[in-house]
C-alpha cells in the first residue's frame, strides 16, 4: 500500500458511514489507474481532500438518513458533551472542604484537571450543537456557516464569561438544554427498535448497580457519621464528639440523613425489581438499565452532600471548626458521583452505531 493509498483511506474514513466505502473504493481505483492516464497521484489525493472538506454531510444521499434523524443523532452527541461539561463543572463545588494541606493540593489538582476537561467538553459540545442545528434546519453552505459561526461565537462568549466566574458548569446549562430541545423537537431519534433484554438478563445487569449504590451509600453514611467527625476533631473519640454536640445543643441533621439513606436503599432495592416488571419487557436495553443505575449512584453521592450538611454544621458550631469536609472520603465520593453521572450520559445519549454500507451500487 502506498502513502497515497493510506491518505485517501484516511480521508474516506472522515466521511459519513453511508458514503465512506463508495468514495474509498472510487479513489483507490483512481489511484490505481492514474499512471494509465498519465496523471499524478497527488491530484487524486487533493481531490479526495477537497471532496471531504466540501461535501454536504447533511444531505440524505451522503449521510444515508433524513435530516431530522441526522439532527437528532448530532443533538445526542451534543447533549453528551455539554452534559459532561455541566456535571464536571458543577462537580467542582463538591470537591472543596477543609482538607489537610497535602490532600487539598491533590484534590485541587484533580479539580483543575476536571475543569479543563469540562471546558474542552463544553467547546466540543457547542460545535456539535451547531452541527445539529445546521442539519435540523437544512442550512448547508453559507447559511450553515453563518448559523454555526453564531452558535460558536455565543459559546465562546459563554466560555469567556465562565472564565470570569467560578460558575463555569452552570453556564453550560442553557446550551445543554438547547441540545436536548433539538433532540426532542426533531423527535425521530433512533430508527429501529432498541435491543431489549430478557427478564433474567435485565436483573443480572441491574444487580451490580444496586450493590454499588448500597456500597456508595454505606461509605457516604460512614463518612458523615464517623470518618468526617473524627477527621475534624483529631484526638477525640466519637462518643466525646457526639456528647459534646449534645451538650452544645447541636443536632446531627438526623432527619435528612435518615431520609437520604431511605432513598438510596429503596432505589437500590427497586432497580432490579422495576427492570423485572413485565412492562419493561419490550422497553429496556442494557444501556437503559446502565444509565438508570449510574444515575442512582450519582444521585446517592449528590444527596450525601446535603445529608451531611447538618452534621458538619453541628460539629462546626459545637467545636468552632469549619463546616466543610475534612476527611478525604468526601471529595473521593464526590469524584465517584461525577464519574457515575458522566457514565450515565455515555450510556444514555450516544446514538446507535451505524453499520458500514458496502459500496454495492
Amino acid at each position, binding site marked *: 500500500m502506498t502513502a497515497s493509498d493510506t491518505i485517501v483511506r484516511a480521508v474516506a474514513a472522515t466521511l459519513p458511514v453511508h458514503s465512506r466505502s463508495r468514495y474509498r473504493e472510487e479513489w483507490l481505483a483512481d489511484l490505481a*489507474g492514474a499512471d494509465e492516464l498519465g*496523471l499524478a497521484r497527488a491530484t487524486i489525493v487533493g481531490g479526495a481532500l*477537497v*471532496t471531504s472538506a466540501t461535501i454536504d454531510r447533511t444531505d440524505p444521499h451522503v449521510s444515508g438518513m433524513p435530516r431530522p434523524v441526522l439532527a437528532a443523532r448530532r443533538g445526542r452527541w451534543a447533549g453528551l458533551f455539554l452534559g459532561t461539561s455541566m456535571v464536571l463543572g458543577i462537580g467542582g463545588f463538591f470537591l472543596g472542604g477543609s482538607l489537610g494541606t497535602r490532600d487539598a493540593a491533590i484534590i485541587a489538582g484533580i479539580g483543575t484537571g476536571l475543569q479543563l476537561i469540562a471546558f474542552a467538553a463544553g467547546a466540543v459540545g457547542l460545535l456539535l450543537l451547531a452541527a445539529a442545528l445546521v442539519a435540523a434546519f437544512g442550512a448547508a453552505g453559507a447559511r450553515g456557516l453563518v448559523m454555526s459561526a453564531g452558535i460558536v461565537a455565543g459559546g465562546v462568549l459563554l466560555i469567556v464569561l465562565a472564565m470570569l466566574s467560578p460558575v463555569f458548569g452552570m453556564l453550560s446549562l442553557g446550551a445543554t438544554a438547547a441540545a436536548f430541545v433539538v433532540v426532542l423537537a426533531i423527535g425521530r431519534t433512533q430508527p429501529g427498535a432498541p435491543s431489549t433484554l430478557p427478564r433474567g438478563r435485565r436483573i443480572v445487569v441491574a444487580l451490580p448497580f444496586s450493590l454499588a449504590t448500597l456500597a456508595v451509600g454505606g461509605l457516604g453514611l460512614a463518612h458523615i457519621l464517623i470518618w468526617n467527625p473524627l477527621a475534624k476533631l483529631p484526638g477525640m473519640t466519637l462518643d466525646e464528639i457526639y456528647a459534646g454536640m449534645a451538650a452544645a445543643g447541636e443536632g446531627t441533621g438526623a432527619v435528612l440523613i435518615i431520609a437520604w439513606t431511605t432513598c438510596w436503599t429503596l432505589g437500590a432495592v427497586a432497580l432490579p425489581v422495576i427492570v423485572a416488571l413485565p412492562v419493561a419487557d419490550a422497553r429496556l436495553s442494557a444501556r437503559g438499565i446502565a444509565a438508570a443505575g449510574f444515575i442512582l449512584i450519582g444521585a446517592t453521592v449528590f444527596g450525601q452532600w446535603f445529608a451531611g450538611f447538618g452534621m458538619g454544621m453541628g460539629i462546626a458550631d459545637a467545636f468552632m471548626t469549619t463546616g466543610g469536609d475534612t476527611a478525604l472520603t468526601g471529595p473521593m465520593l464526590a469524584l465517584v458521583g461525577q464519574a457515575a453521572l458522566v457514565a450515565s450520559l455515555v450510556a444514555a445519549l450516544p446514538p446507535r452505531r451505524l453499520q458500514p454500507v458496502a459500496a454495492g451500487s
Partner: protein
Amino acid sequence: MDALSRMTPATADVLDALLSSGSVWGLRIVKTTGRPAGSVYPILERLERAGWVASVWEDDPARSGPRRRLYELTTDGRAAAQASLGRLRSSATGREATA
C-alpha cells in the same frame, strides 16, 4: 432534479466532457478537462447530488482490485447541461461581438 447554484467554468468543462461521452470514468474527466481532481471531484459530487449525473461501478471482470466509478448525465441532466452550455456560449459570443 435541482438547479445548480452556480455555473463555474470548471463546471462547464465537466458538463462538456460528460456531454461528449456516454458513461465515463471519473478520472478520465479529470484528464479530459485538464482540471485538477480537487475541482472535478467536488463538481461531480454536486452534480450527482443535484440529480444531473448518475454513477455506477464499472463491471469489468478483467480488471481486479477496486472498481472504477462511471459517471453519466441523466436524461434531465443532459437537457439541462445542453441548455446551460448553450447559454454560456451565446453570452460569450455576445461579449466577443461587443468587444
